[in-house]
Protein backbone atom coordinates (compact mmCIF):
# COMPACT_ATOMS: atom_id res chain seq x y z
CA UNK A 1 0.00 0.00 0.00
CA UNK A 2 2.76 2.45 0.88
CA UNK A 3 4.51 1.65 -2.37
CA UNK A 4 1.28 2.07 -4.25
CA UNK A 5 0.73 5.51 -2.69
CA UNK A 6 4.33 6.40 -3.36
CA UNK A 7 3.80 5.64 -7.02
CA UNK A 8 0.57 7.58 -7.15
CA UNK A 9 2.17 10.69 -5.68
CA UNK A 10 5.13 10.68 -8.00
CA UNK A 11 2.77 9.96 -10.90
CA UNK A 12 0.64 12.93 -9.96
CA UNK A 13 3.73 15.10 -9.80
CA UNK A 14 4.82 14.39 -13.38
CA UNK A 15 1.19 14.28 -14.45
CA UNK A 16 0.69 17.80 -13.11
CA UNK A 17 3.42 19.09 -15.41
CA UNK A 18 1.87 17.31 -18.39
CA UNK A 19 -1.47 18.81 -17.40
CA UNK A 20 -0.14 22.36 -17.23
CA UNK A 21 1.44 22.10 -20.65
CA UNK A 22 -1.62 20.38 -22.12
CA UNK A 23 -3.93 23.08 -20.78
CA UNK A 24 -1.87 25.69 -22.63
CA UNK A 25 -1.90 23.64 -25.79
CA UNK A 26 -5.63 23.15 -25.78
CA UNK A 27 -6.35 26.77 -24.90
CA UNK A 28 -4.51 27.94 -28.00
CA UNK A 29 -6.07 25.26 -30.15
CA UNK A 30 -9.62 25.87 -29.03
CA UNK A 31 -9.54 29.64 -29.43
CA UNK A 32 -7.37 30.16 -32.48
CA UNK A 33 -7.30 26.77 -34.21
CA UNK A 34 -3.54 26.54 -33.96
CA UNK A 35 -1.75 23.39 -32.85
CA UNK A 36 1.31 24.93 -31.29
CA UNK A 37 4.31 22.72 -31.89
CA UNK A 38 6.57 25.41 -30.46
CA UNK A 39 4.88 25.30 -27.06
CA UNK A 40 7.66 23.19 -25.51
CA UNK A 41 10.46 25.30 -26.89
CA UNK A 42 8.85 28.57 -25.88
CA UNK A 43 8.77 27.10 -22.37
CA UNK A 44 12.41 26.00 -22.62
CA UNK A 45 13.50 29.41 -23.83
CA UNK A 46 11.63 31.13 -21.00
CA UNK A 47 13.16 28.76 -18.46
CA UNK A 48 16.64 29.59 -19.74
CA UNK A 49 15.79 33.24 -19.32
CA UNK A 50 14.55 32.56 -15.79
CA UNK A 51 17.74 30.66 -15.02
CA UNK A 52 19.89 33.61 -16.11
CA UNK A 53 17.91 35.96 -13.92
CA UNK A 54 18.29 33.56 -11.01
CA UNK A 55 22.02 33.29 -11.60
CA UNK A 56 22.38 37.05 -11.57
CA UNK A 57 20.08 38.09 -8.71
CA UNK A 58 19.92 34.84 -6.70
CA UNK A 59 16.24 35.31 -5.97
CA UNK A 60 14.10 32.37 -6.98
CA UNK A 61 10.67 34.06 -6.81
CA UNK A 62 11.99 37.04 -8.74
CA UNK A 63 13.42 34.73 -11.41
CA UNK A 64 10.17 32.80 -11.69
CA UNK A 65 8.09 35.94 -12.02
CA UNK A 66 10.39 37.41 -14.66
CA UNK A 67 10.44 34.13 -16.59
CA UNK A 68 6.65 34.02 -16.59
CA UNK A 69 6.42 37.62 -17.73
CA UNK A 70 8.98 36.84 -20.40
CA UNK A 71 6.85 33.92 -21.59
CA UNK A 72 3.73 36.10 -21.61
CA UNK A 73 5.52 38.68 -23.75
CA UNK A 74 6.89 36.02 -26.05
CA UNK A 75 3.43 34.50 -26.49
CA UNK A 76 1.99 37.90 -27.36
CA UNK A 77 4.72 38.73 -29.87
CA UNK A 78 4.68 35.34 -31.59
CA UNK A 79 0.93 35.37 -32.00
CA UNK A 80 0.75 38.91 -33.29
CA UNK A 81 3.76 38.60 -35.54
CA UNK A 82 3.38 35.17 -37.07
CA UNK A 83 -0.08 33.77 -36.55
CA UNK A 84 -2.50 36.68 -36.74
CA UNK A 85 -1.74 37.16 -40.41
CA UNK A 86 -2.27 33.46 -41.01
CA UNK A 87 -5.70 33.49 -39.43
CA UNK A 88 -7.55 32.43 -42.54
CA UNK A 89 -5.05 29.77 -43.57
CA UNK A 90 -5.64 26.10 -42.99
CA UNK A 91 -4.53 24.24 -39.92
CA UNK A 92 -1.57 22.65 -41.72
CA UNK A 93 -0.16 26.06 -42.64
CA UNK A 94 -0.43 27.16 -39.04
CA UNK A 95 1.27 23.99 -37.84
CA UNK A 96 4.14 24.67 -40.19
CA UNK A 97 4.41 28.24 -38.90
CA UNK A 98 4.69 26.95 -35.35
CA UNK A 99 7.33 24.44 -36.47
CA UNK A 100 9.26 27.31 -37.97
CA UNK A 101 8.98 29.17 -34.68
CA UNK A 102 10.27 26.05 -32.93
CA UNK A 103 13.41 26.00 -35.06
CA UNK A 104 14.05 29.71 -34.71
CA UNK A 105 13.68 29.50 -30.93
CA UNK A 106 16.07 26.55 -30.75
CA UNK A 107 18.59 28.51 -32.80
CA UNK A 108 18.18 31.56 -30.59
CA UNK A 109 18.63 29.43 -27.48
CA UNK A 110 22.04 28.31 -28.67
CA UNK A 111 23.01 31.88 -29.54
CA UNK A 112 21.87 33.45 -26.29
CA UNK A 113 22.29 30.69 -23.76
CA UNK A 114 24.82 28.28 -25.28
CA UNK A 115 24.61 24.51 -25.37
CA UNK A 116 25.43 23.71 -21.78
CA UNK A 117 23.03 22.33 -19.19
CA UNK A 118 22.43 24.15 -15.94
CA UNK A 119 20.95 23.17 -12.63
CA UNK A 120 17.96 25.14 -11.40
CA UNK A 121 16.81 24.61 -7.83
CA UNK A 122 13.48 23.15 -6.79
CA UNK A 123 10.64 25.48 -5.91
CA UNK A 124 10.44 24.07 -2.38
CA UNK A 125 13.70 22.93 -0.87
CA UNK A 126 12.42 21.50 2.40
CA UNK A 127 13.44 18.04 3.59
CA UNK A 128 11.21 15.11 2.71
CA UNK A 129 8.86 13.92 5.39
CA UNK A 130 7.33 10.61 6.11
CA UNK A 131 3.66 9.84 6.64
CA UNK A 132 3.03 6.21 7.62
CA UNK A 133 5.95 5.01 5.57
CA UNK A 134 5.15 7.09 2.50
CA UNK A 135 7.98 9.46 1.74
CA UNK A 136 6.61 12.80 0.70
CA UNK A 137 8.60 15.43 -1.15
CA UNK A 138 7.27 18.87 -0.31
CA UNK A 139 8.21 20.01 -3.82
CA UNK A 140 6.04 17.29 -5.37
CA UNK A 141 3.10 18.29 -3.21
CA UNK A 142 3.66 21.90 -4.17
CA UNK A 143 3.59 21.05 -7.87
CA UNK A 144 0.44 18.97 -7.55
CA UNK A 145 -1.45 21.57 -5.54
CA UNK A 146 -0.22 24.47 -7.61
CA UNK A 147 -1.55 22.74 -10.71
CA UNK A 148 -4.87 21.96 -9.06
CA UNK A 149 -5.08 25.58 -7.94
CA UNK A 150 -4.42 26.83 -11.44
CA UNK A 151 -7.03 24.49 -12.87
CA UNK A 152 -9.58 25.73 -10.34
CA UNK A 153 -8.78 29.37 -11.08
CA UNK A 154 -8.93 28.69 -14.81
CA UNK A 155 -12.29 27.01 -14.38
CA UNK A 156 -13.57 30.01 -12.46
CA UNK A 157 -12.24 32.31 -15.15
CA UNK A 158 -13.98 30.33 -17.89
CA UNK A 159 -17.31 29.98 -16.13
CA UNK A 160 -17.74 33.20 -14.21
CA UNK A 161 -16.02 36.04 -16.03
CA UNK A 162 -16.68 37.99 -19.18
CA UNK A 163 -13.30 36.98 -20.51
CA UNK A 164 -14.24 33.35 -19.91
CA UNK A 165 -17.40 33.77 -21.97
CA UNK A 166 -15.30 35.42 -24.67
CA UNK A 167 -12.93 32.43 -24.71
CA UNK A 168 -15.70 29.86 -24.82
CA UNK A 169 -17.73 31.61 -27.50
CA UNK A 170 -14.66 32.20 -29.65
CA UNK A 171 -13.73 28.54 -29.24
CA UNK A 172 -17.16 27.43 -30.32
CA UNK A 173 -18.04 29.79 -33.14
CA UNK A 174 -15.71 32.63 -33.89
CA UNK A 175 -17.89 34.54 -36.33
CA UNK A 176 -20.91 34.57 -34.06
CA UNK A 177 -18.65 35.63 -31.19
CA UNK A 178 -17.59 38.63 -33.26
CA UNK A 179 -21.26 39.46 -33.83
CA UNK A 180 -21.60 39.77 -30.07
CA UNK A 181 -18.90 42.44 -30.17
CA UNK A 182 -16.30 40.09 -28.71
CA UNK A 183 -12.82 41.17 -29.85
CA UNK A 184 -11.59 37.75 -30.94
CA UNK A 185 -8.13 39.13 -31.70
CA UNK A 186 -7.70 39.97 -28.02
CA UNK A 187 -8.95 36.52 -27.14
CA UNK A 188 -6.25 34.99 -29.35
CA UNK A 189 -3.41 37.00 -27.91
CA UNK A 190 -4.51 36.54 -24.33
CA UNK A 191 -4.91 32.81 -24.86
CA UNK A 192 -1.37 32.68 -26.18
CA UNK A 193 -0.11 34.71 -23.25
CA UNK A 194 -1.77 32.42 -20.72
CA UNK A 195 -0.65 29.30 -22.59
CA UNK A 196 3.00 30.28 -22.89
CA UNK A 197 3.03 31.23 -19.20
CA UNK A 198 1.61 27.80 -18.29
CA UNK A 199 4.28 26.16 -20.43
CA UNK A 200 7.05 28.21 -18.83
CA UNK A 201 5.77 27.29 -15.39
CA UNK A 202 5.94 23.61 -16.34
CA UNK A 203 9.48 24.22 -17.61
CA UNK A 204 10.65 25.88 -14.41
CA UNK A 205 9.10 23.15 -12.28
CA UNK A 206 10.60 20.28 -14.26
CA UNK A 207 14.04 21.90 -14.53
CA UNK A 208 15.45 20.38 -11.31
CA UNK A 209 14.88 16.94 -12.86
CA UNK A 210 15.90 17.53 -16.45
CA UNK A 211 18.40 20.39 -15.98
CA UNK A 212 17.89 23.59 -17.89
CA UNK A 213 18.82 22.36 -21.34
CA UNK A 214 17.72 22.61 -24.92
CA UNK A 215 15.95 19.26 -24.77
CA UNK A 216 14.43 19.77 -21.33
CA UNK A 217 10.83 20.00 -22.57
CA UNK A 218 10.90 17.06 -24.99
CA UNK A 219 9.18 14.64 -22.65
CA UNK A 220 6.60 17.10 -21.31
CA UNK A 221 5.85 18.47 -24.74
CA UNK A 222 5.21 15.07 -26.26
CA UNK A 223 3.20 13.88 -23.28
CA UNK A 224 1.13 17.05 -23.23
CA UNK A 225 0.04 16.32 -26.80
CA UNK A 226 -0.86 12.79 -25.83
CA UNK A 227 -2.67 14.08 -22.74
CA UNK A 228 -4.64 16.52 -24.88
CA UNK A 229 -5.59 13.90 -27.43
CA UNK A 230 -6.44 11.25 -24.87
CA UNK A 231 -8.38 13.64 -22.64
CA UNK A 232 -10.09 15.19 -25.63
CA UNK A 233 -9.04 18.28 -27.53
CA UNK A 234 -12.63 19.48 -27.52
CA UNK A 235 -12.83 20.10 -23.78
CA UNK A 236 -10.67 22.31 -21.58
CA UNK A 237 -10.37 19.89 -18.70
CA UNK A 238 -10.07 16.59 -20.53
CA UNK A 239 -6.40 17.33 -21.23
CA UNK A 240 -5.75 18.14 -17.57
CA UNK A 241 -7.27 14.81 -16.55
CA UNK A 242 -5.35 13.18 -19.40
CA UNK A 243 -2.08 14.60 -18.07
CA UNK A 244 -2.61 13.26 -14.58
CA UNK A 245 -3.78 9.93 -15.99
CA UNK A 246 -0.65 9.46 -18.07
CA UNK A 247 1.62 10.46 -15.22
CA UNK A 248 0.05 7.99 -12.81
CA UNK A 249 -0.32 5.17 -15.36
CA UNK A 250 3.35 5.47 -16.33
CA UNK A 251 4.40 5.01 -12.73
CA UNK A 252 2.03 2.21 -11.84
CA UNK A 253 2.67 0.15 -14.96
CA UNK A 254 6.40 0.72 -14.57
CA UNK A 255 6.38 -0.55 -11.04
CA UNK A 256 3.84 -3.35 -11.05
CA UNK A 257 4.11 -4.62 -14.56
CA UNK A 258 7.35 -4.03 -16.35
CA UNK A 259 9.75 -1.14 -16.45
CA UNK A 260 11.00 -2.16 -19.89
CA UNK A 261 7.53 -2.49 -21.36
CA UNK A 262 6.06 0.52 -19.57
CA UNK A 263 5.97 2.86 -22.54
CA UNK A 264 4.63 0.27 -24.92
CA UNK A 265 1.92 -0.85 -22.50
CA UNK A 266 0.71 2.60 -21.38
CA UNK A 267 0.55 4.03 -24.86
CA UNK A 268 -0.82 0.80 -26.28
CA UNK A 269 -3.71 1.09 -23.83
CA UNK A 270 -4.18 4.73 -24.77
CA UNK A 271 -4.25 3.84 -28.45
CA UNK A 272 -6.96 1.28 -27.81
CA UNK A 273 -8.87 3.91 -25.81
CA UNK A 274 -8.74 6.22 -28.80
CA UNK A 275 -10.07 3.50 -31.08
CA UNK A 276 -13.05 3.16 -28.76
CA UNK A 277 -13.42 6.89 -28.06
CA UNK A 278 -11.83 8.74 -30.97
CA UNK A 279 -12.67 12.18 -29.56
CA UNK A 280 -10.81 11.40 -26.33
CA UNK A 281 -12.04 10.15 -22.99
CA UNK A 282 -13.72 13.42 -22.03
CA UNK A 283 -14.12 14.83 -25.51
CA UNK A 284 -17.26 15.27 -27.51
CA UNK A 285 -17.40 15.10 -31.24
CA UNK A 286 -17.61 18.73 -32.29
CA UNK A 287 -18.77 19.79 -35.68
CA UNK A 288 -17.21 23.11 -36.42
CA UNK A 289 -19.53 25.22 -38.49
CA UNK A 290 -18.01 26.86 -41.50
Amino acid at each position, binding site marked *: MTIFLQNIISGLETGALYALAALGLVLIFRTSDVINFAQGDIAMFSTFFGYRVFEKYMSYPFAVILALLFAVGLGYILERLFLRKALKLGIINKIIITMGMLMVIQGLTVIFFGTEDYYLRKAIEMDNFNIAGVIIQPNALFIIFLTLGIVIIFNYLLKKTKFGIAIRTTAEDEETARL*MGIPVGKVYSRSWMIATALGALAGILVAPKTQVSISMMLDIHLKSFIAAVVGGFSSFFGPVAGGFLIGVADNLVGYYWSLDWKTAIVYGILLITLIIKPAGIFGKVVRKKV
Partner: protein
Amino acid sequence: MIKISNLNAKYGYVNALKGIDIVVKKGQIVTLLGANGAGKTTTLRCILGLLETYSGEILFKGENIIGKKVEDIVKGGIMSSPEGRNVFGSLSVKENLLAGAYTIKSKQQTLDNLNKVYEYFPILLERKNQMAGTLSGGEQQMLSIGRALMGSPEILLLDEPSLGLAPLIVRDIFRIIQEINKEGTTVLLVEQNAMQALKISDYAYVLETGKIVHEGNSKELIEDDKIKNAYLGGN
Protein backbone atom coordinates in the same frame (compact mmCIF):
# COMPACT_ATOMS: atom_id res chain seq x y z
CA MET B 1 -30.67 55.17 -39.24
CA ILE B 2 -29.00 53.14 -41.98
CA LYS B 3 -28.47 54.45 -45.46
CA ILE B 4 -26.84 52.13 -47.97
CA SER B 5 -25.76 53.62 -51.29
CA ASN B 6 -24.40 51.84 -54.32
CA LEU B 7 -23.27 48.80 -52.36
CA ASN B 8 -21.30 46.22 -54.35
CA ALA B 9 -20.05 42.95 -52.93
CA LYS B 10 -18.11 40.03 -54.29
CA TYR B 11 -17.62 36.43 -53.27
CA GLY B 12 -14.52 35.52 -55.19
CA TYR B 13 -15.39 36.41 -58.78
CA VAL B 14 -19.13 36.37 -58.24
CA ASN B 15 -20.84 39.72 -57.89
CA ALA B 16 -23.23 39.07 -55.05
CA LEU B 17 -24.48 42.65 -54.87
CA LYS B 18 -24.57 45.01 -57.82
CA GLY B 19 -25.07 48.51 -56.55
CA ILE B 20 -27.98 48.40 -54.15
CA ASP B 21 -29.53 51.31 -52.24
CA ILE B 22 -31.44 50.75 -49.02
CA VAL B 23 -32.73 53.15 -46.40
CA VAL B 24 -33.87 52.11 -42.94
CA LYS B 25 -35.42 54.91 -40.91
CA LYS B 26 -35.43 55.06 -37.15
CA GLY B 27 -38.31 53.13 -35.62
CA GLN B 28 -39.17 51.21 -38.77
CA ILE B 29 -39.29 47.54 -39.59
CA VAL B 30 -37.79 47.13 -43.03
CA THR B 31 -37.90 43.82 -44.88
CA LEU B 32 -35.52 42.46 -47.49
CA LEU B 33 -37.27 39.87 -49.61
CA GLY B 34 -35.89 37.61 -52.26
CA ALA B 35 -35.09 34.04 -53.22
CA ASN B 36 -32.05 32.07 -52.13
CA GLY B 37 -28.88 33.63 -53.44
CA ALA B 38 -30.47 37.01 -54.14
CA GLY B 39 -28.01 38.75 -51.83
CA LYS B 40 -30.07 39.27 -48.69
CA THR B 41 -27.65 37.69 -46.27
CA THR B 42 -24.74 39.32 -48.10
CA THR B 43 -26.31 42.72 -47.47
CA LEU B 44 -26.47 42.00 -43.75
CA ARG B 45 -22.90 40.70 -43.75
CA CYS B 46 -21.75 43.94 -45.39
CA ILE B 47 -23.48 46.05 -42.75
CA LEU B 48 -21.85 43.97 -40.01
CA GLY B 49 -18.39 44.24 -41.53
CA LEU B 50 -18.05 40.50 -42.05
CA LEU B 51 -17.27 40.77 -45.75
CA GLU B 52 -13.99 42.07 -47.06
CA THR B 53 -14.56 42.69 -50.73
CA TYR B 54 -17.21 45.28 -50.94
CA SER B 55 -17.51 48.90 -51.95
CA GLY B 56 -20.03 51.68 -51.73
CA GLU B 57 -21.30 53.50 -48.70
CA ILE B 58 -23.07 52.32 -45.58
CA LEU B 59 -24.03 55.20 -43.33
CA PHE B 60 -25.04 54.29 -39.79
CA LYS B 61 -26.25 57.32 -37.84
CA GLY B 62 -24.55 59.46 -40.46
CA GLU B 63 -21.16 57.79 -40.25
CA ASN B 64 -19.69 55.56 -42.94
CA ILE B 65 -19.03 52.17 -41.36
CA ILE B 66 -17.45 50.46 -44.35
CA GLY B 67 -14.04 49.10 -43.42
CA LYS B 68 -14.70 49.26 -39.69
CA LYS B 69 -14.02 46.27 -37.49
CA VAL B 70 -16.96 44.01 -36.64
CA GLU B 71 -16.57 44.62 -32.92
CA ASP B 72 -16.69 48.40 -33.39
CA ILE B 73 -19.76 48.18 -35.60
CA VAL B 74 -21.46 45.99 -33.01
CA LYS B 75 -20.43 48.34 -30.20
CA GLY B 76 -21.96 51.18 -32.20
CA GLY B 77 -25.39 49.62 -31.73
CA ILE B 78 -25.98 47.02 -34.45
CA MET B 79 -26.83 43.59 -33.11
CA SER B 80 -27.90 40.63 -35.18
CA SER B 81 -29.39 37.19 -35.16
CA PRO B 82 -27.59 35.25 -37.90
CA GLU B 83 -29.11 32.83 -40.35
CA GLY B 84 -29.38 29.40 -38.82
CA ARG B 85 -29.44 31.06 -35.39
CA ASN B 86 -25.93 29.93 -34.35
CA VAL B 87 -26.50 29.75 -30.64
CA PHE B 88 -23.44 28.67 -28.65
CA GLY B 89 -24.51 25.08 -28.11
CA SER B 90 -22.11 24.21 -25.30
CA LEU B 91 -23.02 27.28 -23.26
CA SER B 92 -26.13 27.54 -21.13
CA VAL B 93 -29.03 29.71 -22.21
CA LYS B 94 -28.07 32.34 -19.66
CA GLU B 95 -24.42 32.32 -20.75
CA ASN B 96 -25.53 32.79 -24.35
CA LEU B 97 -27.49 35.83 -23.26
CA LEU B 98 -24.54 37.19 -21.28
CA ALA B 99 -22.36 36.76 -24.36
CA GLY B 100 -24.81 39.04 -26.15
CA ALA B 101 -24.22 41.67 -23.49
CA TYR B 102 -20.46 41.60 -24.00
CA THR B 103 -20.33 45.24 -25.08
CA ILE B 104 -22.44 46.43 -22.14
CA LYS B 105 -20.18 47.79 -19.43
CA SER B 106 -22.70 48.33 -16.65
CA LYS B 107 -23.78 45.30 -14.63
CA GLN B 108 -27.13 46.90 -13.86
CA GLN B 109 -27.81 47.45 -17.55
CA THR B 110 -26.95 43.80 -18.27
CA LEU B 111 -29.34 42.68 -15.56
CA ASP B 112 -32.10 44.95 -16.86
CA ASN B 113 -31.63 43.63 -20.38
CA LEU B 114 -31.69 40.06 -19.09
CA ASN B 115 -35.00 40.64 -17.34
CA LYS B 116 -36.38 42.31 -20.43
CA VAL B 117 -35.41 39.33 -22.62
CA TYR B 118 -36.97 36.92 -20.13
CA GLU B 119 -40.14 39.02 -20.35
CA TYR B 120 -40.23 38.69 -24.13
CA PHE B 121 -39.33 35.01 -24.03
CA PRO B 122 -40.44 33.43 -20.73
CA ILE B 123 -39.33 30.01 -22.02
CA LEU B 124 -35.71 31.20 -21.86
CA LEU B 125 -36.06 31.94 -18.16
CA GLU B 126 -37.45 28.47 -17.65
CA ARG B 127 -34.48 26.95 -19.47
CA LYS B 128 -31.79 29.38 -18.38
CA ASN B 129 -29.44 26.67 -17.09
CA GLN B 130 -29.98 24.28 -19.97
CA MET B 131 -27.30 23.87 -22.65
CA ALA B 132 -28.40 25.92 -25.66
CA GLY B 133 -27.63 23.04 -28.00
CA THR B 134 -30.44 21.02 -26.45
CA LEU B 135 -33.15 23.61 -27.17
CA SER B 136 -35.74 23.14 -29.91
CA GLY B 137 -35.42 25.10 -33.14
CA GLY B 138 -37.98 27.68 -32.07
CA GLU B 139 -36.36 28.13 -28.69
CA GLN B 140 -32.96 28.55 -30.30
CA GLN B 141 -34.40 31.25 -32.54
CA MET B 142 -35.82 33.02 -29.51
CA LEU B 143 -32.45 32.72 -27.80
CA SER B 144 -30.71 34.11 -30.84
CA ILE B 145 -33.00 37.15 -30.93
CA GLY B 146 -32.83 37.54 -27.16
CA ARG B 147 -29.04 37.37 -27.28
CA ALA B 148 -29.02 40.18 -29.83
CA LEU B 149 -31.31 42.28 -27.60
CA MET B 150 -28.87 41.84 -24.71
CA GLY B 151 -26.54 44.30 -26.42
CA SER B 152 -29.12 47.13 -26.26
CA PRO B 153 -29.12 47.52 -30.05
CA GLU B 154 -30.40 50.58 -31.82
CA ILE B 155 -31.01 48.42 -34.84
CA LEU B 156 -31.61 44.69 -34.91
CA LEU B 157 -30.68 42.67 -37.99
CA LEU B 158 -32.65 39.43 -38.26
CA ASP B 159 -31.69 36.87 -40.86
CA GLU B 160 -34.56 34.50 -41.63
CA PRO B 161 -35.99 34.15 -38.14
CA SER B 162 -38.74 31.88 -39.47
CA LEU B 163 -36.39 29.39 -41.12
CA GLY B 164 -37.45 25.82 -40.44
CA LEU B 165 -39.98 26.68 -37.75
CA ALA B 166 -43.58 25.54 -37.31
CA PRO B 167 -46.20 28.13 -38.40
CA LEU B 168 -47.47 28.72 -34.87
CA ILE B 169 -43.98 29.47 -33.60
CA VAL B 170 -43.32 31.71 -36.59
CA ARG B 171 -46.41 33.71 -35.67
CA ASP B 172 -45.18 34.05 -32.09
CA ILE B 173 -41.78 35.21 -33.20
CA PHE B 174 -43.14 37.78 -35.61
CA ARG B 175 -45.47 39.10 -32.90
CA ILE B 176 -42.49 39.53 -30.59
CA ILE B 177 -40.45 41.23 -33.31
CA GLN B 178 -43.30 43.72 -33.61
CA GLU B 179 -43.30 44.25 -29.85
CA ILE B 180 -39.56 44.80 -29.79
CA ASN B 181 -39.96 47.35 -32.54
CA LYS B 182 -42.78 49.15 -30.71
CA GLU B 183 -40.47 49.63 -27.74
CA GLY B 184 -38.06 51.56 -29.89
CA THR B 185 -35.70 49.17 -31.66
CA THR B 186 -35.39 49.59 -35.40
CA VAL B 187 -35.48 46.26 -37.28
CA LEU B 188 -34.02 45.14 -40.58
CA LEU B 189 -35.57 41.81 -41.41
CA VAL B 190 -34.42 39.36 -44.07
CA GLU B 191 -37.10 36.84 -44.94
CA GLN B 192 -38.29 34.29 -47.43
CA ASN B 193 -41.60 34.09 -45.65
CA ALA B 194 -42.77 37.16 -47.56
CA MET B 195 -46.38 37.37 -46.42
CA GLN B 196 -45.61 37.36 -42.70
CA ALA B 197 -42.73 39.75 -43.13
CA LEU B 198 -44.71 42.24 -45.19
CA LYS B 199 -47.55 42.17 -42.68
CA ILE B 200 -45.39 43.41 -39.83
CA SER B 201 -43.03 45.71 -41.71
CA ASP B 202 -43.29 49.33 -42.84
CA TYR B 203 -41.19 49.22 -45.96
CA ALA B 204 -39.76 46.44 -48.10
CA TYR B 205 -37.15 45.84 -50.76
CA VAL B 206 -37.14 42.91 -53.17
CA LEU B 207 -33.74 41.60 -54.20
CA GLU B 208 -33.09 39.51 -57.27
CA THR B 209 -29.57 38.30 -58.15
CA GLY B 210 -27.90 41.17 -56.38
CA LYS B 211 -30.16 43.99 -57.51
CA ILE B 212 -33.18 45.67 -56.04
CA VAL B 213 -36.07 45.03 -58.40
CA HIS B 214 -38.93 46.39 -56.30
CA GLU B 215 -39.40 48.55 -53.29
CA GLY B 216 -42.27 50.22 -51.56
CA ASN B 217 -44.52 50.41 -48.54
CA SER B 218 -45.20 46.90 -47.32
CA LYS B 219 -48.97 47.38 -47.45
CA GLU B 220 -48.78 48.32 -51.10
CA LEU B 221 -46.43 45.46 -51.95
CA ILE B 222 -48.85 42.94 -50.47
CA GLU B 223 -51.41 44.14 -53.03
CA ASP B 224 -48.95 44.29 -55.93
CA ASP B 225 -49.69 41.58 -58.49
CA LYS B 226 -46.09 41.04 -59.52
CA ILE B 227 -45.01 40.54 -55.92
CA LYS B 228 -48.00 38.34 -55.27
CA ASN B 229 -47.13 36.05 -58.13
CA ALA B 230 -43.44 35.86 -57.42
CA TYR B 231 -43.28 35.75 -53.63
CA LEU B 232 -46.67 35.25 -52.12
CA GLY B 233 -47.60 32.13 -54.05
CA GLY B 234 -50.10 33.68 -56.48
CA ASN B 235 -53.68 34.72 -55.65
